């Protein structure tokens, strides 16, 4: 039997990828040329590209402060996620009374949009006394239900006999998690890191509510502030957008293999 040619499939994939990348290309092109995005007819190729808009952004706004805040908050969220989600994911692989109800509760909590829980979240953050702090900004992202299930799926793929052998050797539950489960769950860790990074890096509403001073603002808030304060800065505005996007893209590109493996682990049997 003759195999069907693969080029039509590849052509379709290339076309779809091109379509997906056009907005990003347009953002980068505008950041390099500073031309009006409403200019008609639009220029496909950049004319006289330069990087001075990026220099402008660096000095027009406290970019390093925003970057530092975003990095601290994201690092806290990632650490919290790895710690709490590992513990919760491992617990859900065990048998305990009302386990089904706990899972059901987790799943039903995923149906509630974050906007609906903002007031209680704000009150809790206020009672803890961490408003306008990095911890306060990171707090709602310290554990996420989706990532708990990613860990659960990954841990369930580890053979029970391995865990039993470790237990016979005298390892405590925490050491089983740290020494056996986590080294065998690298895709799940990468997925956790990337998802948390993206959510924390792009978070806008919660940081907007919980921060009170400009020096605690993160990059997305800085972008909104930049939009409201500056005028006639098309190139600088888009340069700022690229500078906000690049760290997330870099992390994703570095870990995409593990990320995709982590998301698909548990999707198939065997």
């Amino acid at each position, binding site marked *: 039997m003759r195999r069907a040619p693969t080029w039509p499939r590849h052509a379709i994939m290339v076309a779809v990828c091109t379509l997906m990348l056009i907005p990003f290309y347009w953002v980068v092109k505008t950041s390099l040329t500073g031309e009006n995005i409403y200019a008609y007819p639009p220029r496909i190729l950049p004319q006289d590209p330069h990087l001075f808009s990026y*220099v402008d952004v660096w000095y027009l706004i406290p970019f390093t402060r925003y970057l530092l805040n975003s990095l601290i908050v994201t690092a806290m969220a990632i650490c919290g996620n790895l710690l709490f989600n590992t513990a919760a994911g491992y617990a859900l692989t065990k048998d305990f009374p009302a386990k089904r109800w706990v899972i059901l509760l987790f799943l039903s909590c995923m149906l509630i949009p974050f906007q609906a829980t903002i007031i209680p979240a704000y009150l809790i953050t206020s009672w803890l006394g961490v408003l306008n702090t990095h911890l306060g900004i990171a707090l709602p992202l310290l554990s996420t239900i989706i990532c708990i299930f990613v860990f659960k799926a990954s841990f369930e793929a580890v053979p029970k006999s391995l865990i039993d052998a470790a237990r016979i050797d005298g390892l405590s539950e925490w050491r089983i998690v740290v020494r056996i489960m986590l080294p065998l769950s690298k895709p799940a860790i990468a997925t956790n890191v990337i998802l948390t990074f993206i959510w924390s890096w792009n978070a806008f509403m919660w940081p907007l509510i919980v921060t009170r001073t400009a020096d605690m603002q993160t990059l997305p808030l800085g972008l909104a502030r930049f939009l409201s304060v500056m005028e006639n800065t098309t190139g600088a505005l888009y340069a700022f957008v690229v500078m906000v996007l690049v760290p997330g893209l*870099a992390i994703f590109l*570095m870990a995409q293999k593990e990320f995709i493996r982590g998301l698909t682990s548990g999707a198939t049997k065997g």
Partner: protein
Amino acid sequence: MSAGIDWRAMVRHRFFYVPVALAILTAGWNAYVAAYDDGLIEGEVHDAAGKPIPGATVIFFERNFVNYQEKFRATTDAAGRFRFTDMQVHIGQLEARVEDGRRSERFQMNLWFRSQNVQLPPLVLGSPRA
């Protein structure tokens, strides 16, 4: 179970060498900036024939969000050269003027970092502006 760390594998991992490469690039860039950030802006004023103009006034216009406003002045020496010192700017415009009313085109100056030492192309005086 071996508890040793495989350093060779760690060094070869993307999550190690990419941040390290970025850190080296950043350190190199900062070293370059530290070596060339005295805030010196230098250049010459010529007439259309290329003859240096002594005693011309060179005006530096600083950006003020939406437009440029005059901020500093310098005068060219006998060789037609001018120099601004301690300029804490990364963007601005320069224009040369002489007493007979001739002016140069405004030169748009974009620098790679604040206080960068820069040697500008000559400002060429044109005909008097109305």
